[in-house]
């Protein structure tokens, strides 16, 4: 999946994923019979035929969403490690006598159609009884008959369908989390049933109060209601009592304290009234409070997702297996596949073109271009020769290499980087909930009001003093207040998701609504993330010859030049001489005929060409202009004289400047933070209208993290990035935003993921966050207004339990309506999605 410039792409769509097909892979007309099938990569081809062989062609009729399109990936692994006894012991559970079950993490799952495909596995693979996929976690539970099929066979089949398999990690963590989910849901159900039944009995009592009721009947109904309240408060409601108790012991206050006071006072007073056989009871309100507050908690719990840890992040970046050469084997021998965990320092590993290095080490044989973008963020490939150090996660672009392993797994540089991500996310500051900040004043206000009420009524009618104070405490219970924040966030997160902005938790919105420093990565975030030829000066007849020569190389720069000067006319033949990381030299014939005259060309960087050819004055000026613009000059020399100069650059995305201006207008202070060359970064800053002091280039992943820490000392800090090298900074920032097309590690480390291309989505995000916080504030104001109104009724002594029972759901309902009816993320898009 190398980024290919758009003009290298044909107008055919890949039969599997629907993305454009590169010209080089487009089939000639009629080659494959009637129906032409083109594929963007070999992964998609494998998956397409695997799906059709299994009779699952309906997959393509299911109408997948355009946003979700991505090329398929298959690995051809044998998955023998899944048959290992140690794996079976820790991951596989027995189901009945013959069946086993396992949870597998599937890479590449993104939509409902994937689920359809994966869950059809029992139909195509005999012995598999059941597959159920949890779409949110990308984890499939597979049940199979051990005598009829083996786990590696199942894994290979899933792989061939485009879903490489990894054992689900952290089973313990997942289990405890699931247990907690179930406990919360059970509590919610019990509280709901008690609240509903208490309300039914309350209706009967109110009916009796108006039309008369036998005392024994009233006693029965009040007694049963009391039982409901006791069950509710000391059953599901225990969480509030425990929360309040620990807060009081710690000498702090949060919203559990007024809740606990209201629950205990209401239940106690009600129990006394039932025993006395006279006085009002508020059991329906008490049970409703418990239920509604638990609803709020449950929503909040479901919003937050647990952070991924370093080991899991490594999955997405390094292969799970490597081909190890037997000890004593020749360097050109074929390796045997082993799990990466089995690699030890000193082992020799074979890596082919297009594969990712499994471990850190030293090159022993082979010379190839490497894409270091994962580690450095630099988009240009680097050619490395034997003896040089290479790192895990680096992509080998061309040729076969052999490396001697020095460090593996979390020991590798990439592993260290991922541990940095984990540590950074642990250090993220915790936000004190807005409602908890209000708690102190809230408690003071209600207790004072209750005391005043008691005092007032002890003069007016001493018999009703306690009654009215209790009524006030119950009716001011911060019920809608508990719902105000989670509901508003929940509604906004749902709306944002429909607009291509995926937010991992409500807290993030609260942070993003502020004002502070906005750190922007350059490559891929503000720019298109791939090189393009922007100017060409000199002898244009050289074009096809240059293209023919560049076709021999797989570098991003070569591809950009090929995209501009190609396609290569038929008959052109190139014979490359020296190929270096900074240039290529060789001869090109325009046709195969003997009399055709070859042109001897050298294409490369300024320094590389200067060392072998002259540069005339008029090109010196062009080079200076290109350098001034922050772009990279590429010189073309023919027989020791420069004949043309072109410039390569990674152009800014459309609308990037407007987006940065809008963010500044919102009060953010944008700063560039890039791993790219400082001169390039400065040039981009200039184009964006940013101060050059606000841009920093040549920043390592570790330095990005330090920059976030430094910025955080001055206030709120938001980081926007796309690469693995941004991951640590993304997780440490108050808000981390990963942009469309970013590496999986950055998506997981970030709080927000934009599934819609373009930096404009960041503006939508910031504006939406502000509107959401406005909704939260409005919700809080409304629920407080209800409390004040109800407190007024209680002080005036006109509050009946019926009022309390009506006001409480009414205030909650208002909050729900306000949350779901407010416009947060659905305002008209500022930057319409570019047509593809």
């Amino acid at each position, binding site marked *: 999946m190398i980024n290919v410039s758009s003009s290298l792409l044909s107008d055919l769509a890949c039969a599997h994923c629907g993305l454009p097909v590169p010209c080089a892979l487009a089939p000639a007309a009629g080659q494959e019979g009637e129906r032409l099938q083109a594929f963007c990569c070999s992964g998609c081809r494998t998956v397409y035929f695997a799906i059709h062989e299994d009779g699952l062609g309906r997959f393509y009729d299911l109408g997948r969403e355009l946003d979700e399109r991505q090329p398929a990936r298959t690995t051809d692994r044998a998955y023998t490690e899944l048959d290992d006894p140690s794996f079976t012991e820790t991951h596989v559970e027995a189901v009945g006598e013959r069946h086993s079950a396992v949870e597998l993490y599937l890479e590449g799952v993104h939509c409902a159609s994937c689920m359809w495909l994966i869950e059809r596995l029992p139909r195509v693979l005999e012995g598999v009884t059941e597959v159920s996929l*949890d779409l949110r976690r990308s984890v499939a539970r597979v049940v199979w008959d051990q005598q009829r099929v083996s786990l590696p066979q199942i894994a290979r089949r899933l792989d061939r369908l485009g879903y490489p398999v990894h054992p689900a990690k952290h089973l313990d963590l997942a289990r405890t989390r699931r247990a907690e989910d179930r406990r919360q849901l059970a509590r919610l159900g019990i509280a709901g049933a008690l609240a509903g*039944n208490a309300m039914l009995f309350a209706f009967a009592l109110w009916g009796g109060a108006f039309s008369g009721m036998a005392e024994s009947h009233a006693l*029965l109904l009040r007694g049963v209601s009391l039982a409901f309240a006791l069950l509710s408060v000391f059953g599901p409601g225990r969480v509030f009592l425990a929360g309040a108790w620990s807060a009081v012991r710690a000498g702090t206050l949060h919203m559990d304290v007024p809740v606990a006071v209201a629950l205990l006072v209401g239940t106690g007073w009600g129990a006394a009234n039932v025993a006395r056989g006279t006085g009002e009871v508020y059991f329906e309100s008490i049970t409703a409070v418990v239920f509604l507050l638990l609803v709020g908690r449950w929503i909040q719990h479901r919003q937050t997702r647990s952070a991924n840890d370093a080991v899991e992040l490594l999955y997405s970046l390094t292969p799970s297996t490597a081909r190890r050469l037997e000890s004593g084997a020749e360097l050109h021998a074929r390796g045997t596949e082993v799990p990466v965990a089995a690699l030890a320092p000193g082992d020799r590993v074979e890596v082919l073109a297009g594969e990712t290095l499994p471990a850190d080490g030293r090159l022993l044989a082979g010379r190839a271009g490497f894409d270091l973008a994962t580690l450095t963020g630099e988009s240009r490939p680097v050619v490395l020769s034997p003896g040089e150090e290479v790192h895990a996660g680096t992509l080998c672009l061309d040729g076969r290499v052999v490396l001697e392993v020095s460090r593996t797994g979390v020991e590798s540089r990439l592993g260290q980087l991922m541990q940095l991500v984990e540590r950074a996310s642990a250090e993220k500051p915790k936000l004190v909930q807005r409602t908890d900040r209000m708690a102190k004043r809230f408690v003071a206000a209600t207790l004072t009001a209750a005391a005043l009420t008691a005092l007032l009524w002890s003069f007016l009618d001493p018999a009703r003093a306690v009654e009215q104070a209790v009524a006030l405490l119950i009716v001011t219970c911060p019920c809608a207040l508990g719902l105000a924040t989670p509901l508003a966030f929940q509604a906004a997160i749902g709306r944002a998701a429909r607009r291509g902005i995926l937010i991992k938790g409500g807290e993030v919105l609260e942070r993003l609504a502020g004002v502070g420093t906005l750190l922007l990565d350059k490559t891929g975030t503000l720019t298109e993330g791939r090189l393009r030829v922007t100017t060409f000066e000199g002898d244009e007849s050289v074009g096809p010859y240059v293209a023919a020569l560049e076709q021999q190389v797989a570098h991003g720069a070569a591809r950009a030049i090929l995209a501009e000067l190609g396609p290569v006319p038929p008959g052109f033949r190139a014979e490359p001489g020296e190929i270096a990381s900074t240039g290529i030299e060789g001869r090109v014939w325009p046709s195969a005929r003997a009399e055709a005259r070859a042109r001897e060309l050298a294409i490369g960087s300024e320094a590389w060409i200067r060392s072998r050819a002259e540069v005339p004055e008029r090109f010196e000026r062009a080079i200076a202009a290109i350098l001034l613009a922050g772009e990279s000059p590429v010189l073309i020399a023919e027989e020791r004289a420069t004949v043309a100069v072109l410039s390569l650059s990674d152009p800014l995305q459309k609308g990037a400047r407007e987006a940065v201006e809008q963010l500044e207008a919102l009060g953010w202070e944008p700063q560039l933070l890039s791993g790219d060359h400082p001169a390039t970064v400065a040039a981009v800053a200039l184009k964006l209208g940013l101060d050059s002091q606000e841009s920093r280039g040549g920043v390592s992943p570790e330095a990005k993290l330090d920059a976030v820490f430094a910025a955080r000392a001055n206030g709120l800090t938001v980081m926007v990035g796309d690469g693995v090298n941004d991951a640590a900074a993304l997780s440490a920032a108050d808000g981390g935003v990963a942009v469309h097309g970013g590496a999986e590690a950055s998506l997981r480390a970030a709080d927000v993921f934009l599934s819609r291309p373009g930096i404009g989505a960041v503006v939508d995000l910031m504006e939406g966050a502000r509107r959401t916080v406005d909704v939260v504030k409005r919700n809080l104001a409304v629920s407080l207004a209800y409390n004040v109104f109800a407190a007024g009724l209680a002080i005036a002594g006109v509050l009946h339990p019926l009022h309390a029972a009506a006001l409480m759901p009414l205030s909650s309902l208002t909050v729900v309506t306000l949350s779901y009816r407010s416009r947060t993320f659905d305002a008209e898009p500022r930057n319409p999605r570019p047509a593809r």
Partner: protein
Amino acid sequence: MDLIFLVVPIALALAGFFVFAFLWSVKSGQLDDLESPAVRMLHDDEPSARETPDES
């Protein structure tokens, strides 16, 4: 109206039964994943005739 002494326990027993049923469904994991089933039901309308040969 003393029938109420019989009706209330019956009502409570019914409510208790449904609460118990809910708790059972939570414990058995039926409510663990609230998103995938919503999507899954959309897929079940395929013609079964085409798939039957595969199941043999």
